Every structure is written in structure tokens, then in C-alpha cells.
């Protein structure tokens, strides 16, 4: 996947030179290993900063909201689905975009790798399916498959769903993936155990709102947690306030979340809040057969009415 970058740079330069776009949104190398950061390139010099490897897990659709320029955006499978959602929700026009599609083989989980080594990791490089981790006094070659973020390991839409250019041949989609094993496990718990489970899951949360800021769906001009008139939710670290924030944020993503994993990736304390959005994703699929961001033609289930909509829950 790291060999895509030459083609990405070539496409970015060409689009900028032909004035088809004003800017290109991609990734550049971060200041620490495994932390590539989103960047905007407007000139050929800036294009040279672009990188592509298995550390580009942040969702670039997040940077398109309400933009007025003509934009080229580099899109993995999940990014492209969120771009579709953005277009459906009128946050950007399709005509403004040139989508550089990147078939993805998954992003690596920096927490997994950090947990494997004692000392500080200085450098992480990759060849086709291997990741080489170097630090002070150690060097180890690892299999990339073992290091994927959980959402990437369970991903069934690795190829972009919309694109104007494709950087390489499409990759094979994963088949027979059991996406919801963890959710079923929680569903089978008793109410008390569920309560306890989420209490413990969310206990480390410091309410920095990084998950919200990294999420391409969270584009409200004023988020409900920031409002003070009326104040919907307490702003303290009190466990119920923390839970309310996470549960409500998840609800706002119902039928829209593509499980891109940007929230979990950006969390400084490593909370897997995807469990909440994934439950809603599972319900949407079970009840409406809906997967978010797959088509520009179909309206999402939560903004359409069909006589066949399930309503057994109403007595």
C-alpha cells in the first residue's frame, strides 16, 4: 500500500496544475511514528509532503464540511462512504470534488504496537505485508495482518464506493467476516452487567471530545455538549454525564456511521466507543438492510418513510 504514494503525488500535481482543483487533502508524516496527520496541499512543493502508508486512519471526509473550493480528496473505502454521506447531507457538492480512490488493506493499530514494546518506538516502516518497528536497542519485523485496527480487520468495504481516479487495482474484499461478535456478547448480558460494562468502558474518558472532532459525522456548528442555553448535558466528569455524552453522540451517528474508526483512533485514553456506534450500525442493517454511504441514490432509512418500516416496538 505504501507504493501508492508516487501515483497519488502524480495525480495531485496533475489536478493542481490543470486547475481542476484548488487544493488536495491528504496525509503528511506526523512528528511521531504511526501518527500521520491530515494536510492540505495547494502547491507542488506541498504535494511533495504527502505520504501514504498504514497510518492514515483518520477520516478525510471530516475536512470537506461546508467547503467552497474545488477539492481533490484521497479516499479509502471508509472515507469514500463518508464522502457519500456528506454529499447526501448537503455538506459538499459532488461537482466540487475529485475523489482519488485508494483501495485499502487496513490501517495498523498504534496502541497494539506500542503495547508490544518496552521502550520508545523511533521508527515504523513497512513493506508489502510486513511492518518493521525500530526503537532504542530493538528491531522487529511483524506481520501487518496481526496489527490491524479492529474495524479494519472487520472491514467489508475496502475499496472506495465512489471515485474519479483509482490509484491501483481494487483489492479483494474480505468475505465471511463476523462483524458483530463483540456486540452480540454485550447484548446477551443482563441489564446490570451492561450498565457495569459501560461504566468501566467509559470510566477513563476525560471528555476532551477528540472522538467528536475526528468524526466526519460530527459537523454541527454547535455540538449539544457545548450548548449552555439550554444545557442538554452536564459538563462534569461525573460518570452519568460522561455516559450521556457518549450515548447521545452515538445516537447522532445512527444510520450514518461507517465504522471508519477515527473516533477510537483519536482517543487519547484508548476507549473503544465504537461499540456504541456499531450496535446502531448493526440495528440499521438488521431492521432496514442499510449500510451507510454505499450509494448517492438511496436516502438513509432515518429520513424516509416506508409502510414496511418495522414498528413492532410500538404497543
Amino acid at each position, binding site marked *: 500500500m505504501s507504493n501508492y504514494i508516487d501515483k497519488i503525488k502524480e495525480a495531485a500535481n496533475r489536478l493542481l496544475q490543470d486547475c481542476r482543483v484548488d487544493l488536495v487533502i491528504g496525509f503528511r508524516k506526523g512528528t511521531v511514528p504511526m501518527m500521520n496527520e491530515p494536510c492540505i496541499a495547494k502547491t507542488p512543493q506541498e504535494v511533495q509532503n504527502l505520504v501514504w502508508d498504514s497510518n492514515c486512519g483518520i477520516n478525510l471526509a471530516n475536512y470537506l464540511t461546508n467547503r467552497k473550493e474545488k477539492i481533490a480528496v484521497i479516499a479509502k473505502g471508509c472515507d469514500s462512504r463518508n464522502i457519500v454521506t456528506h454529499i447526501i447531507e448537503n455538506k459538499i457538492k459532488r461537482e466540487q470534488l475529485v475523489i482519488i480512490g485508494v483501495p485499502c488493506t487496513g490501517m495498523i493499530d498504534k496502541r497494539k504496537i506500542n503495547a508490544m514494546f518496552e521502550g520508545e518506538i523511533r521508527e515504523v516502516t513497512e513493506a508489502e505485508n510486513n511492518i518493521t518497528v525500530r526503537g532504542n536497542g530493538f528491531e522487529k519485523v511483524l506481520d501487518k495482518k496481526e496489527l490491524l485496527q479492529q474495524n479494519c480487520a472487520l472491514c467489508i468495504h475496502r475499496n472506495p464506493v465512489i471515485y474519479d481516479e483509482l490509484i491501483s487495482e481494487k483489492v479483494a474484499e474480505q468475505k465471511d467476516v463476523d462483524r458483530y461478535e463483540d456486540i452480540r456478547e454485550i447484548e446477551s448480558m443482563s441489564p446490570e452487567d*451492561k450498565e457495569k460494562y459501560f461504566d468501566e468502558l467509559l470510566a477513563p474518558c476525560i471528555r476532551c471530545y477528540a472522538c467528536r472532532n475526528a468524526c466526519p459525522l460530527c459537523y454541527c456548528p454547535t455540538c449539544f455538549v457545548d450548548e449552555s442555553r439550554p444545557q442538554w448535558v452536564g459538563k462534569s466528569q461525573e460518570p452519568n454525564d460522561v455516559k450521556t455524552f457518549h450515548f447521545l453522540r452515538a445516537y447522532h451517528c445512527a444510520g450514518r456511521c461507517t465504522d471508519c474508526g477515527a473516533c477510537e483512533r483519536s482517543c487519547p485514553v484508548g476507549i473503544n466507543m465504537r461499540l456504541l456506534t456499531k450496535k446502531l450500525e448493526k440495528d440499521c442493517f438488521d431492521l432496514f438492510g442499510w449500510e451507510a454511504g454505499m450509494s448517492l441514490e438511496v436516502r438513509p432509512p432515518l429520513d424516509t418513510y416506508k409502510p414496511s418500516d418495522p414498528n413492532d416496538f410500538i404497543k
Partner: protein
Amino acid sequence: MELMGMEHGRLQFSWVSSAESTKFVEVVKAVTAAIKTLGPNTNFAKINAEVA
């Protein structure tokens, strides 16, 4: 909601027309009875600091 630890039956939905007053009364009675058997909600209940 049930995934978060809300007991089954604490959250209920009904369609009641503004003209269906008898149905409304029935629904309210049924819901009240159901919730009373469940007892007070402890999940999501904020515990206020005790003041001496």
C-alpha cells in the same frame, strides 16, 4: 437503550390519537403498573453529594 443497561420494558412506545382518551388511560395504567414492578431506576441516576 437496552444495550446501555436499561431494563427491558422501562422504555415503551405507543400510538395514541388525541381522540382515543380511553386508550390513553389504559396505556398509562399499564405502563405505570409495569414500571412499578421494575422499581426505581438506578441506572443513570445521579447521586447528589450529601450535605451535612
